């Protein structure tokens, strides 16, 4: 009872742990508790899906599908002792991989980034705080586009390791559990992913130099 009393103020929701927010949501369908959970994690979950899929509409669908599963499975499969976000990430990861395997093809990222509409749609979602002026914005945009492009070229299993590590700072033990491989395999995938990215950056640099000489 005292715990609930402490939850009444809006400020206190921010101070609560994920576990407590989940409890409030499950026992009282507490809207503020769920919104706080969403505020904390939705960007990372969405960014992971988006970076894996590279298609805004599909990313939206998978994001919604993930939360539909989260809501329907929470009473059956989520153990309140475990990390809620790790559990949600497992669902998001599985939904994303399922989609990729169903499609059985990789989306041509070049064509997607070539479209002006998609480009603006993509950058509308980025925070403005990091971009100070137009020049910086352009350089930043180019770098991000290039990075996303190279990441999308990575094999799916390497891409998921890189993104799980980047967005969640997930320990390799957890990445290994989530992707059902050994820690050494997960570490190996990360290593190959970085080697491949380095190769792609190098190829891009060579191409730029070639264009500059012309």
């Amino acid at each position: 009872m005292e715990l609930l009393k402490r939850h009444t103020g809006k400020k206190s929701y921010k101070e609560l742990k994920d576990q407590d927010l989940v409890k409030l949501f499950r026992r009282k369908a507490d809207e503020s508790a769920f919104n706080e959970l969403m505020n904390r994690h939705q960007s990372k979950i969405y960014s992971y899906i988006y970076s894996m899929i590279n298609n805004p509409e599909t990313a939206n669908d998978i994001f919604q599908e993930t939360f539909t599963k989260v809501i329907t499975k929470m009473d059956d499969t989520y153990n309140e002792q475990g990390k809620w976000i790790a559990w949600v990430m497992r669902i998001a990861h599985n939904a994303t991989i399922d989609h990729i395997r169903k499609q059985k093809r990789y989306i041509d990222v070049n064509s997607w980034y070539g479209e002006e509409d998609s480009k603006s749609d993509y950058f509308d979602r980025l925070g403005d705080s990091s971009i100070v002026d137009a020049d910086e914005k352009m350089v930043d945009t180019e770098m991000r586009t290039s990075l996303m492009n190279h990441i999308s070229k990575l094999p799916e299993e390497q891409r998921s390791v890189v993104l799980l590590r980047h967005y969640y700072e997930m320990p390799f033990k957890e990445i290994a559990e989530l992707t059902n491989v050994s820690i050494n395999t997960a570490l190996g995938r990360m290593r190959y992913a970085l080697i491949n990215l380095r190769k792609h950056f190098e190829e891009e640099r060579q191409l730029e130099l070639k264009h500059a000489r012309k």
Partner: protein
Amino acid sequence: MLESENCSIRYLMREMDPSEEIEFEREMMEDENLLIEVESLRKTYQKMGKLPLMDPPEELSNNVSKSAIAAQQKELRKNKQWMFLLTKSVAAAAILLMVVSTGLYFYNGTPAVQEASQTNIATEANVVEPWVDRNNVIMFVGTSVQPNNDQSLQSDVDESFSKLTLVNSETGIAPSSRKIVLTSSSN
């Protein structure tokens, strides 16, 4: 994949123990190729920092939130209904039990049944067990005679009756007798 090859990743991702880190740094100082590989991987990994963090469209986020709340409220309502039904069932069972117990109590309390039960009590608890003491007085306790003991009791009564003697006084106490005692002494 060799475990030693993964050491560079473990080092970069800070997944090594401090002692392992020191050991690996010593190895890098001795092996130039290893140092180049680690630095090259570090540079590439640093570029990953530019990966953008994106928010889902606001509309999507609101929809997810609304549907989550609605689904959870529905679930809670369903649970409440189950609880209500369960409580009702328990209450109904309790009332039924009470009615049956009360019925049984009143059924046992009717005169005919009471009489029957009292007879049972008399036959079981107040069984007469007569006996004859050393003065041939018949004695018994209890309030009624068991039918099986009728004959033996009658014979005891008859025998005791035949031993009765008449008394001289009305009080039934015999006067003290006067007797002369004859002796052979000269006094």
